[in-house]
């Protein structure tokens, strides 16, 4: 949690200097403060301080219409994501009869195939760059995925 004293300082700064809004971000710390006079369109305040190009790993604000995106919960902190590099259909195994490439609890080395993504009839093997243990699989077999969508959570070694 952010330091409350810092925030109080910010608020005092706003009041004494008659500011209308303060938006700050430090790493993934973020503060937005506003006083009356501006009319907000009610957009997520993140929009106001969005970095020029967010990296796919960090939780970017998603439009309500992007139902494919899973909520990454608290206990996942410290885990690393394997994200989809493309748009396509997710397959956990090379064919319906085979075992999945990876299962929860399995250790993976970097470069190991973790799934297949099919796009326009082409089957692409997806390899992990992270070495560690598969903690969670975030998508179902044969589910469609979008670019940058987290597929696996890995606890790095």
């Amino acid at each position, binding site marked *: 949690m952010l330091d409350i004293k810092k925030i109080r300082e910010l608020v005092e700064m706003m009041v004494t200097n008659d500011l209308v809004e303060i938006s700050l971000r430090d790493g993934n710390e973020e503060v937005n403060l506003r006083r009356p006079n501006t009319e907000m369109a009610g957009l997520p305040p993140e929009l106001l301080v969005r970095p020029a190009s967010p990296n796919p790993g960090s939780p*970017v604000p998603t439009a309500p219409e992007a139902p494919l995106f899973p909520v990454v919960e608290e206990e996942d902190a410290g885990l690393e994501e394997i994200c989809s590099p493309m748009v396509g259909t997710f397959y956990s195994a090379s064919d319906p009869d085979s075992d999945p490439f990876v299962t929860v609890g399995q250790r993976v080395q970097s470069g190991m195939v973790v799934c297949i993504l099919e796009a326009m009839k082409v089957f692409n093997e997806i390899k992990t760059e992270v070495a560690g243990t598969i903690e969670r699989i975030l998508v179902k077999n044969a589910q469609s995925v979008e670019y940058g969508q987290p597929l696996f959570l890995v606890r790095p070694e």
Partner: protein
Amino acid sequence: MFRRILIANRGEIALRIIRACHELDIEAICVISEEDRGAAYLDLADRTICIGGPEPRDSYLKSDRIVAAAEVTGADALHPGYGFLAESAAFAEKCRASNIEFIGPSAEAMRLLGDKATARSVAKKAKVPTTPGSEGIITDESELVEIAEKIGYPVIIKASAGGGGRGMRIVRKKSELVTTFKQAEQEAKGAFDSTDLYMEKYIEKPKHVEVQMIADTHGNVVHLGERDCTVQRRYQKLIEESPSPAIDSRTRNNLCAAAVKLTKAADYAGAGTVEFLVDGKGKFYFIEVNTRIQVEHPVSEMTTGIDLIKTQIRVAAGEHLGFSQRAIKPRGHAIECRINAEDPSEDFRPCPGVVTKFRTPGGPGVRVDTYGHDNCRISPRYDSLLAKVIVHQPTREEAIQSMRRCLREFIIEPIHTTLPFLRRVLAHPDFTAGKIDTGFVERTLS
């Protein structure tokens, strides 16, 4: 009719297409780059699918990913909007090869009319007037003089390798022809390491007038009247209106008839625009065809009452146009102003950023197409077009009054926009008198 359309575009035109889909009870899915996540216009889409990074080449121009997005979302058609891949025949073919209907003309028609040279020859065959000139490179002086005599002065000598104004020379009388040609050769040699030159008639103080076409796959071709886009800056349109204040009804009829001939000659289906230059005497010359919907399409929608996007979708689904040329009765006068996030005082440099205050005008006959809103973010990566204001009034005079009122009402803070510039144009006597040419902005307001 289609069940689900993938919109391969962003911003105001994506929003425009979403609305058209919903009025036809079609689901609208938007592809988005990571940059556009959370943009407010996406609230109206039935679903979004992220296809790549912020740069257009990583997302909105990635045809494979867009087709894949259409496949995984179960879309049966795709609307390309304008820009990005809208005029790519290869992309149209790729969509159709995956059983996703590309909402636009056939790839053949796109190739035929998309290329300036082939389009020009189609026009000639269809007896549509083109700028007279040397067909191809000029090889010797006698040919040079001969052609110049034939097409008449002034002429313009252009370097084949040139473009965007570079390597061009105007010749006003015969005595200057040969010397100027030699200078041009030298210049071309130095600039482009090629002495290939060709020659065209030079159209003085031209007006840019285009005709909106819409055709179905059953051979029905209808024009929705013309649009005057003479207010431009470096070939960028800033204001469009219909009808054109620069041409009389005879010229108008001939212009539209020519556009119909060309469209039929190319066996064209869908929405398209045939562009002409018109000289001071009302003579017109074919320039090119845009094989897509255009930014300024609302101008024709206002005067004719026809929804061009819905009609595009219908004809792409194989339906008949549903209206004849006789049914099209343009009414009143419409003007569109483009509000771009650019600083007119800084040579129209793009001004991306966050808009904290965004107040659009309203009232009778006023339409604002925009993705803007309070606290919306304008990305530096994409087109600077933020909003289009279109007014529709019984007469041009009233339309100008209404547009002035709208430009006064429109508030966009704190970024720079073209609003102050547009206010100057709407207040300029040459514009209100309709006595301008494509050089007006550079000459008068720069």
